[in-house]
């Protein structure tokens, strides 16, 4: 019996086609940036070329990188706009601080305390992500965004009335006002005053490990059955359902993993400062992380890493503008957004680059396939 094998697709038909995502390349670039940056900065620090100001930002930069990468899981890979990432960061930070204080009563080995606290922070944040995730998964687009914003605010509001502390060595908590009979030094979390007396344990190396871990998890997830399912649902929800993908399950998965990673990052952030107030985790922080993601290119992991680093350092370098610092930052933000996304500027820049690289074939991206298809018919 003769095989009826279909004719192969003509090569010519692929001249406008675009190659897909190269996971290995993406991973290599991401890890190289992280490790290379770490080594470079360590050398510069050892050589005394890095000032206090930049040194002090190492840990926050790492935290923001992790946050940007984890938010990318929701915004870029799952395709949902989340405006409440700081909420998960808050849950992770405060539960991590709480755990570290409890552990400090019986342990003194800091790396172990840090790791357990971070895992606990991740766990609590993922629980929060799960609780938040369930109701919102039926929502779409901007409605989902507003609900994440609302949850972020609820978490912060709730932190304002939450009190934790030791009374006679026992952990006690209360809502509103104060815990009966507590000594000032035994307070852990005091409502709006936040967490005080935290023992700072974070360091640049821990920050790097956190970043590597986050990138590892997110990139691996992206290139796995689950990640493909999440991206499929982003690209076409109805088609995803038609091939049997459980939309809610995978959206929830992306949301919970992202929350857990944000919780971990939040915990490291919390353990980098001796005090932490709930106001820190307001809408502005969520937006800040979103800015990293968008500026780095939605879905682009290493772009997010670079954007987070630059935008954390940028306001600090603008200190020389004194009173005009934040104004300058705002203007730069607007200009960079227009410069990166405006179609006219984009194509002009591309044309400019094409001149430098005459040998490389220009592919004009996705030409409207569907139109040409219909014309043929």
């Amino acid at each position, binding site marked *: 019996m003769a095989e009826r094998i279909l004719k192969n697709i003509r090569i010519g038909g692929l001249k406008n086609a675009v190659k897909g995502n190269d996971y290995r390349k993406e991973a290599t670039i991401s890890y190289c940036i992280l490790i290379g940056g770490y080594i470079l900065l360590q050398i510069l620090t050892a050589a005394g070329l890095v000032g206090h100001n930049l040194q002090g930002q190492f840990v926050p930069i790492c935290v923001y990188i992790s946050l940007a990468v984890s938010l990318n899981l929701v915004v870029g890979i799952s395709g949902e706009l989340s405006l409440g990432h700081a909420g998960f960061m808050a849950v992770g930070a405060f539960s991590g601080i709480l755990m570290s204080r409890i552990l400090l009563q019986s342990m003194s080995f800091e790396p172990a305390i840090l790791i357990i606290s971070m895992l606990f922070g991740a766990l609590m944040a993922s629980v929060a992500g799960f609780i938040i995730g369930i109701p*919102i998964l039926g929502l779409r687009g901007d409605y989902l965004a507003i609900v994440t914003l*609302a949850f972020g*605010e609820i978490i912060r509001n709730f932190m304002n009335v939450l009190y934790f502390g030791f009374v006679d060595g026992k952990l006690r908590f209360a809502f509103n006002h104060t815990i009966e009979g507590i000594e000032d030094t035994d307070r852990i979390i005091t409502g709006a005053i936040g967490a005080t007396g935290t023992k700072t344990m974070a360091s640049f190396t821990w920050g790097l490990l956190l970043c590597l871990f986050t990138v590892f998890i997110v990139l691996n997830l992206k290139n796995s059955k689950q990640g493909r399912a999440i991206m499929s649902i982003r690209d076409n929800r109805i088609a995803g359902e038609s091939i049997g993908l459980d939309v809610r399950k995978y959206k929830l998965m992306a949301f919970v993993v992202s929350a857990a990673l944000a919780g971990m990052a939040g915990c490291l952030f919390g353990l980098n400062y001796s005090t932490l107030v709930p106001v820190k985790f307001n809408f502005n922080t969520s937006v800040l992380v979103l800015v990293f993601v968008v500026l780095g290119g939605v879905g682009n992991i290493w772009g997010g890493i670079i954007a987070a680093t630059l935008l954390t350092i940028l306001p600090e370098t603008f200190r020389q503008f004194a009173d005009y610092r934040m104004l300058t930052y705002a203007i730069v933000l607007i200009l960079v957004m227009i410069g990166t996304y405006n179609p006219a500027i984009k194509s002009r820049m591309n044309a400019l680059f094409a001149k430098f690289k005459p040998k490389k074939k220009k592919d004009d991206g996705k030409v409207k396939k569907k139109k040409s298809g219909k014309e043929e018919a």
Partner: protein
Amino acid sequence: MIFLTNLISGLSLGSVYAIIALGYTMVYGISKMLNFAHGDVIMIGGYMSFIMTMYMGLNGWLALLVAMVICTILGITIERLAYRPLRGTGSLAVLITAIGVSYFLQNIALLIWGANPKMFTSLFNGMKPIHAMDGQLTITPESIFTILANIIIMILLTLFVSKTKAGKAMRAVSEDNGAAQLMGINVNQSISLTFAIGSGLAAVAGVLMLSAYPVLMPTTGAMPGIKAFTAAVFGGIGSIPGAMIGGLILGIIEIFSRAYISTELSDAIVFACLIIVLLVKPTGLLGKKISEKV
């Protein structure tokens, strides 16, 4: 009686939210973007009106008019310079730009008018509050006028959108940008007009809000902006009556939860109500159901 007092202050607060939310909802309807700088336009409107009355010696109402004109121009300028270059590049890029604009407005206000708060003189300063039921029930002129203004704006806007040519063009653009263009509608003009109306309303909202809650600072617009955005989503973003209903309900929930449940958690309660509403009606109270063609 306390109930009635709370209801009235809830309605009044809700009316402020509603007027701000109208700006959000119209802009969203036409350009599908969340204009997070809207709250800061309110603040600018407040400062303009303040300056006109305090330094230029203008009458409050005249100052309101000037503030409206300035905010309208501001709205159009923002749209032209910051949002138009990004049209058609996806809502995220514009969202971030809007946040950039918001920072910009706040910081420029800080530089010009300083960090010290100003006390806004109420537009209805000469009028006396109405006391009824042996002083148990108090109705301030601000409440009355805010609620009235909300109703009038609502009616005018509905008429504008449904009866006038420009309004119909706006609706056409918000339905289908490309098709509207093919029908010969000037899309740029329609969008500019929307921003103009939204920003003009922001000035009104700012003056009304500051008449009732008079502290004016560079960050004055931030929280009402977020609340109004919530209100717009509550009612179904893109829907004009939805914005009004959403605003009113939000105001009432906020005041009632403060009065009867907890002042500490009132914001959390407001947001929790929003979530519950969206669970029952995923596109808000009056929002259009999104149906995808299969």
